[in-house]
């Protein structure tokens, strides 16, 4: 058995180990289902707008998740909210990863930049991020684009720190020196040697940064800084808070809350499973 395992490439070994983890597989399936819901939202429910006749109806066969203070269907809100919450989370995370990757690799490869960039990252990480995001989002005016940029702007230092520490381990390797000796440009060395080396770390980072971005989006929208023209899970909670439904209509807050929990929990478990699968020594 061990002979077979050692014949596999590291990637195949990771995949084999990952497939044996039921929690990881279930998380991946849930994320896939949420992505399908986000993409197919128009096919599942009509966009919630206008006023309905039945206000504050508890869940029924007609309104699965009940209705809110102006008679809109909460099920439709949650379905359409999946779209915005996931889109904002994913775009903010991709943007944060790109910035973090550039900063982290520059800090590791160009020694002179290490101290200033390191100080910048340390300083950013020691500030309370949510109040800062609130200030900037309020000034820039609420929109989906604002949310993406604001969340990315304050999420990249975490990524940069992780990328830097893993790139630091690659820079002193003989093949990097060899690449320098044969006259490779800094850009070529970074692209050919450093970026591939940090990709596994970045993979985990994408997942975790996305879940944090989803939480940040929900928090900002809950405080009233979401896009007023679209639905996100945080916006549903914000409207429930404003209409005074928190203490009476449990269904207006329970379902968006469950959606957030489902997404964040499955991303967390997925990254744990991926880490375990990649870490062959601890798995055996």
């Amino acid at each position, binding site marked *: 058995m061990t002979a077979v395992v050692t014949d596999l490439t590291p990637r195949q070994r990771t995949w084999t180990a990952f497939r044996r983890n039921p929690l990881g597989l279930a998380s991946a399936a849930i994320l896939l289902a949420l992505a399908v819901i986000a993409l197919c939202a128009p096919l599942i429910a009509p966009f919630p707008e206008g006023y309905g006749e039945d206000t504050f109806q508890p869940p029924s066969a007609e309104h699965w998740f009940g209705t809110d203070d102006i008679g809109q269907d909460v099920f439709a809100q949650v379905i359409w909210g999946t779209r915005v919450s996931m889109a904002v989370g994913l775009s903010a995370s991709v943007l944060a990863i790109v910035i973090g990757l550039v900063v982290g690799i520059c800090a590791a490869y160009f020694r002179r930049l290490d101290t200033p960039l390191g100080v910048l990252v340390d300083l950013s*990480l020691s*500030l*309370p*991020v949510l*109040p800062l995001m609130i*200030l900037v989002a309020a000034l820039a005016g609420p929109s989906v684009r604002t949310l993406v940029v604001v969340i990315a702007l304050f999420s990249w230092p975490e990524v940069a720190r992780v990328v830097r520490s893993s790139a630091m381990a690659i820079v002193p390797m003989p093949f990097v020196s060899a690449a320098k000796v044969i006259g490779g440009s800094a850009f070529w060395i970074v692209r050919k040697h450093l970026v591939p080396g940090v990709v596994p770390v970045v993979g985990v980072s994408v997942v975790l940064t996305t879940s944090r971005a989803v939480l940040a989006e929900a*928090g900002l929208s809950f405080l009233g800084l979401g896009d007023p023209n679209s639905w996100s899970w945080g916006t549903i*909670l914000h409207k429930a*808070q404003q209409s005074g439904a928190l203490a009476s209509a449990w269904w207006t807050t329970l379902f968006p*809350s469950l959606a957030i929990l489902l997404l964040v929990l499955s991303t967390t478990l997925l990254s744990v499973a991926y880490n375990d699968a990649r870490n062959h020594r601890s798995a055996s």
Partner: protein
Amino acid sequence: MRFVVTRLLRGLLTLWFAVTVTFFLVRLLPGDPVLAVADPNMTEELRAKLLADFGLDQPLGVQYLNYLAQLVQGNLGMSFRQSIPVTTVLMDRLPWTLILTGSAMLVTIVLGIPLGVLAATRAKGWVDRVIQLTGVTAQSLFVPSVGIFLMYVMGVTLGWFPIGGAVDLDATGPAAWLSMLHHLVLPCLSLVLIQLGGYVLTMRSTLIEALGEDYVALAKAKGVKPRAVVWKHALRNALLPTTTIAGLQLGTLVGGAVLTETIYAYPGIGRAIYEAVGQLDFPVLQGAFVLLAAAVVAANLLTDVAYGILDPRVRTS
């Protein structure tokens, strides 16, 4: 002493960074700079007068130095909705936020230590699995969801605790203190639930590491009782790294407090932020961030110094 001074300088640097970032973000964002000091619905003359009054017609560098000079004197500008200094608005609110976050931190530590010990001493057993999975789940919770859930179940349905405010205004003397505690339970519990996971998981892994050290083997060989080995020998050393987690989680704690105070109408800085968002009161938002950043920096400084006193090795690094 040199250690304390270095840490103090680092804290001041962080604070300066926070202030500078907000100053330039506010000025460089596409919005109207006058929005940062006054109402958008005003005449052109008034606008020009305000620009001059607040020094906004001067070069950016001069504005920045003025801003720093005002800040050092504790002046955070005027709230344009309430026409009183931002410092006054926020200082009234600060004690409530400190009570809420302080009590949440205390309860988290008091619950986190025994839970971490329980998981570490039964590592790989089912108790450990349950604690680990619950810890990961708790870290994925959205603060308002937890707050709303607790409010609905323990406040509305069971009626055990009040669901809003910080104190019964009619109560006096000891009754007022009791009412304060009574109002504190649900918001505090919401913060504890989201914080606890991180503490327990860190406590667990550092304690497992400590239990593998030579001095633990020695203590066991000497015939020290297993309970004493864990609580007296290993735990003491495992507690040190856990104090750094307290510092790292301060940002999360403050963010959580903003959201929790919003739900429970708890009159702290977080609720002030929520109200200021609704009224587009930018000076209050900016001041709240600066004040919260200062609180986090101060708390970090305290943990650092405490760590240095407990563990002399840190002082030299």
